[in-house]
């Protein structure tokens, strides 16, 4: 019931906003639908706390410790982004960058995008997972090109083609899993793609097929995660689309893609009983961290800068899941949560900063503190949080990952530390003059929405100091579920 409400609300929202998206109050309607979705997610969470994992609708949907907090997180950031996008898009409209028809498209697709992510997270069917991931790409392509500038069209095209081709590889991987499962679960074909059934028989699945499947799945969903060298679409799509979309792409979609990879890894690892999936994930993760931290130095566009930072953090998470084991998995899950909250908060602040300065170029954004202390502090604190300064939550998770790496994969620790240091210097060096110094920025026609920024940062701070027992319990359960070599 809660699940139907959770998945139904954004779908209904997409339809309603398609009809009334150009209305004066469409932004409020958007917030309302997102709030209802969040309420449904909370109700579902309460239910899972009370009764444990839930399997519903002919076993097609599954809520367990691994995805329940991701569902809540997605609904929560969906809501705060909707709150942020209300004044943001209004300012964009006043600046003449979007008209009423495009706002209609924007609002409707925003809801649809939320729906696809929630389906991807809650489905128990690997095939449906794929369908939802592809649908998530499709619903955001036209959002990336919302401004119709040459650069945004290029970004949209790259996004469409690279993610389309990538995800086609994932479909092949899914097919191979089905091929292996059919031999164990019977040719009826109804249960052979259901994750719970696969998980029950994973020890009997043919290792040769599953290792090949994992290569395709990792490359496929990895494209969507933005793992180097498949990350090309990510900075463009983040930089050229409207900022609320950058926030949800970076904060939520990447998480969902990692979730898909990890779900597949659990099955493959159970079948192979070897470290191949782990090693592949660690390899991709490390390459992403290192490449992204080097590219950070050369960025001149503020949104591209933080897009590369997302690649870096996705690399860290992938590496941690690759290491496996209770502590690394716990840290990776925590990192997914805090990265998502921090990065979306940063994008909110960056969005308003860019609107004030009238440009996204770092060199032309100066002295945010003088004109708007809240935007300036939001950006500064957000950057410090994402760079892993204590006492923010990112510090806690990165610390856990590094100490585990020292024990389990000592060779990787110096590489990680060096990359983190490079990233720190790059981002801090670029953000610091943006916040301090003289300004030429302009006033905005509407007051910016900064409540979401500070709400997110407060939660990240809280998670750095104290992880509530429910959440810690889920992380531990999920970490056990994910296992490791």
């Amino acid at each position: 019931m809660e699940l139907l409400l959770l998945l139904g609300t954004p779908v209904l929202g997409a339809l309603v906003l398609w009809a009334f998206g150009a209305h004066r109050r469409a932004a409020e309607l958007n917030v309302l639908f997102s709030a209802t979705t969040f309420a449904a997610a909370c109700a579902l969470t309460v239910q899972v706390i009370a009764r444990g994992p839930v399997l519903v609708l002919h076993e097609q949907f599954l809520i367990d410790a691994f995805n329940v907090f991701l569902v809540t997180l997605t609904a929560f950031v969906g809501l705060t982004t909707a709150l942020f996008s209300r004044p943001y898009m209004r300012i964009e409209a006043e600046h003449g960058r979007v008209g009423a028809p495009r706002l209609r498209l924007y609002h409707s697709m925003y809801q649809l995008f939320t729906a696809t992510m929630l389906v991807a997270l809650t489905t128990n069917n690997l095939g449906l997972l794929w369908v939802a991931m592809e649908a998530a790409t499709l619903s955001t392509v036209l959002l990336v090109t919302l401004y119709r500038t040459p650069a945004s069209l290029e970004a949209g095209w790259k996004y469409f083609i690279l993610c389309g081709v990538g995800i086609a590889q994932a479909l092949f991987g899914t097919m191979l899993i089905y091929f292996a499962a059919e031999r164990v679960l019977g040719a009826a074909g109804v249960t052979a793609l259901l994750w719970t059934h696969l998980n029950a028989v994973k020890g009997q699945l043919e290792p040769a097929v599953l290792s090949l499947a994992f290569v395709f799945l990792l490359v496929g969903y990895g494209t969507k995660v933005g793992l180097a060298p498949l990350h090309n679409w990510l900075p463009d799509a983040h930089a050229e689309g409207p900022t609320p979309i950058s926030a949800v792409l970076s904060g939520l979609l990447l998480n969902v893609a990692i979730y898909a990879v990890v779900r597949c890894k659990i099955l493959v690892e159970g079948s192979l009983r070897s470290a191949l999936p782990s090693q592949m994930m660690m390899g991709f993760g490390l390459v992403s961290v290192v490449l992204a931290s080097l590219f950070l130095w050369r960025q001149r566009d503020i949104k591209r800068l933080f897009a590369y930072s997302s690649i870096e953090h996705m690399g860290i998470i992938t590496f941690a899941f690759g290491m496996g084991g209770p502590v690394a998995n716990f840290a990776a899950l925590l990192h997914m949560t805090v990265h998502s909250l921090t990065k979306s908060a940063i994008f909110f602040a960056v969005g308003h900063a860019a609107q004030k300065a009238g440009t996204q170029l770092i060199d032309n954004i100066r002295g945010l503190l003088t004109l708007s202390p809240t935007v300036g502090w939001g950006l500064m604190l957000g950057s410090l949080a994402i760079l892993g300064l204590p006492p923010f939550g990112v510090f806690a998770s990165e610390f856990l990952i590094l100490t585990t790496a020292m024990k389990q994969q000592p060779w990787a620790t110096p590489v990680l530390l060096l990359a983190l240091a490079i990233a720190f210097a790059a981002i801090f060096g670029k953000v610091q003059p943006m916040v301090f110094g003289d300004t030429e920025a302009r006033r905005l026609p509407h007051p910016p929405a900064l409540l979401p920024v500070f709400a997110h940062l407060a939660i990240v701070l809280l998670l750095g100091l104290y992880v509530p027992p429910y959440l810690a319990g889920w992380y531990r359960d999920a970490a056990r579920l994910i296992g490791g070599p």
Partner: protein
Amino acid sequence: MNPLPLDLQLLNACASLLLLLSFSMLAQRRVVNLVNLLALQGALLCFATVLVALRTGQAHLYLSAALTLALKVIGLPLLLHRLIRRLGVYWDAEPVINPSGTMLIGLLIVVFSFGLAQPLAALASTATRSTLGIAIAVILLAFLAMITRRKAMSQVVAFLSMENGLFFGAMSATYGMPMVVELGVALDVLVAMLVLGVFFFQIREQFDSLDLHHLESLKEVE
């Protein structure tokens, strides 16, 4: 050695024709012909699905065949033809690699695909094991076509050809995916085409052409 039953022979013939079509798509530069080849590929896929359905008696495969017919043989090619007419893109530019080079790489890909399919085919209990290698080859050849093409329209046709290869692979390895998944995938493909249609008009409006070299200004480092 006993000769194969007729339906399996036909299925193998389908597979080889699919591969042949993939190669001709690599060489073809007229976009209209490219779309026709794609439709032909869809028709072969549909025919192969019916063959497997007859052999195994699985009812959902007929539905899948009907879906292929509606979407890949009729729907999408019609849509693409309309787009081509309205946008006036009839020829692709010179490919990135010259045609003979592309063909050679294509040959290597086929050898590689059969190598890749070897361990899988040995496991396949289905009667169609020999076709798995071809399915992988079709996917990878479409990939090659996407790399070597310069016009947005031909890249999209190659993308759809990759989708055909995937479906053929699914069929030859497992007699098709469960219906709910196939419906979902079909829906995604359809929506993807609609999005693309909108997208093409946006690109043309902005650049007055669908040549992809307009879309090369975003760089990793500036």
